């Protein structure tokens, strides 16, 4: 699992910084998307309520319009519908649209409007029932308005639904895939780096040991040589004799600041 849930990277310090930056980015992105999702959800919830209300309202409004039509038919005669059907020319009720922006999601918004000017319908039912026809017309116009509103809500619903799904998918992806992966990668890199460090440390230690061993051997050799030399020319020797390892000889300025020397007293790290 762990091998799959991380990025395939070369565990180096530079990559680590890159990864860390990516993690920070992902966290920030996650927070932002979460916020967006929340905003969308809020709007969405509101929409749901509005849609349900509007749909239920629709029933009664349409009922009113239908009845107005019945009244018109009563006054103007059964055949009036054929007259109306034949008088259809160009639409005077149209829908205008623009875009609404909710948390970065563009939602088309409709608005119905009536083209100004006389229509052929104005004189329909001149002989009888014209008034009822006009009131029926008004009833239907208001119904159309409501319907367009409902269409608004519905489009918004569909668009938001889609947008919400996408956002939620992204949030979840960030939360459950990208972030863990990055984190895993970072910890993997760190672990790898430590491992490398420990190896280095051990190697250095070994080198030092070898060095010391070599030194001791040298020293013993030197001592033997000195003893032999003292015997030969005792007056020439100015340097004091080497008194074993430095650590045992109190604090000394780290002349040779090797890693080994620096961390010598804290091996636990």
């Amino acid at each position: 699992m762990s091998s799959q849930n991380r990025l395939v990277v070369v565990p180096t310090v530079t990559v680590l910084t890159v990864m860390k930056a990516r993690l920070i980015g992902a966290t920030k992105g996650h927070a932002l998307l979460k916020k967006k999702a929340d905003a969308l959800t809020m709007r969405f919830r509101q929409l749901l309520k509005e849609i349900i209300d509007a749909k239920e309202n629709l029933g009664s409004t349409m009922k009113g319009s239908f009845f107005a039509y019945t009244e018109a038919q009563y006054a103007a005669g059964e055949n009036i519908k054929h007259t109306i059907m034949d008088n259809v020319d160009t639409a005077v009720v149209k829908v205008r649209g623009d875009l609404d922006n909710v948390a970065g999601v563009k939602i088309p918004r409709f608005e119905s409007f009536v083209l100004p000017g006389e229509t052929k319908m104005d004189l329909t039912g001149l002989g009888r029932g014209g008034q009822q026809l006009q009131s029926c017309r008004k009833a239907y116009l208001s119904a159309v308005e409501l319907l367009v509103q409902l269409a608004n809500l519905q489009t918004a619903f569909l668009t938001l639904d889609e947008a919400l799904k996408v956002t939620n998918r992204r949030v979840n992806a960030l939360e459950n895939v990208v972030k863990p992966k990055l984190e895993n990668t970072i910890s993997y890199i760190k672990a790898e780096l430590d491992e490398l460090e420990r190896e280095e440390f051990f190697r250095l230690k070994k080198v030092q040991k070898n060095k010391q061993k070599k030194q001791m051997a040298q020293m013993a050799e030197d001592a033997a040589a000195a003893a032999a030399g003292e015997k030969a020319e005792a007056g020439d020797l100015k340097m004091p004799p080497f008194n074993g390892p430095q650590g045992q000889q109190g604090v000394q300025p780290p002349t040779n600041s090797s890693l080994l020397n620096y961390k010598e007293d804290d091996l636990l790290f």
Partner: protein
Amino acid sequence: MYGFEMMSFNIKDGFLEGVVRSHRTGMLTVADYNNLSQCETLEDIKLNLTATDYGPYLVNEASPIYTATIVDRCTQKLVNDWNYMRTQADENLAMFMDYCTYGHMIDNVVLIVTGTLHERDVQELLDKCHPLGMFDSIATLAVAQNMRELYRLVLVDTPLAPYFSENLTHEDLDEMNIEIMRNTLYKAYLDDFAAFCQKLGSTTAEIMGDMLAFETDRRALNITLNSIGTELTRDDRKKLYSNFGLLYPHGHNELAMAEDFDQIRSAMEKVPAYSGIFSKLGYGESQMLDKLLYEEEVKKCVDCYEQQFHYGVFYAYMKLREQEIRNIMWVSECVAQDQKGRIADGIVYLF
């Protein structure tokens, strides 16, 4: 010379008068309407109607039944009765009965004319025509491509030809708003019908004069009411009023000038016969007017039955049946749309 038609009327028309009068028994009564008002569904209405004269026409209708079907079947009943009488009728009466249906014929012609201009299917158009307004050559109406041709080829042979030729020029045929054309024709028709009734003389002239005067005055009123605020000018409006009726000519002048409902009202109230109708209306409201006018018409039609030996009953029968079908439509729509509180607003009780 009233009274002499008593001796001679039955020679030709006694049988049909008996028929048309006995149809009165088949009309729905207040009790029937009460039953219909109690219905919960259209099926109930159908069931209730099967007990009436409409029964044979509705009984075989499959469910679910719709208002349109009910109205259609009821109209069929009227049409069948009417055609039965029309085929038995003799010269004057046949002529009279034809005159009664010219109104529908005008509607049909206008329907087909507009339909043809919009390139509708002929059969589809014919289905939409009112069956009472059919004439033999109606199908050929759709042959013509433009109005001039239409007149030259088809309309000349119809009974409506004089109305077209005397009132509309070729230019009118092409340009006129279809509603204005319809009403111009209707005006010509009413004038002609009234003249015909006067020619028939005696009781028919008296009764039909009264009925047609009401009809034409109602049209004048409606035209005025519906043309307020439209492009129709005063002069054009005045041209649509018929040349008779209780409002002719002074009332027409006033109506032509009227700009709102109250002016119409003051013009109408000068005629005693109509002041009663308007006194039932509150100031400024015109919604109930249609029903009140329907009621007045029904009253006149029912009064028609009080006299014997005249043709008015045929006209009255048609009008009453049409009102009855309107009532049925209203009740069914109210029931179908769950608006039972409004049922009483639309029913005009006949008897």
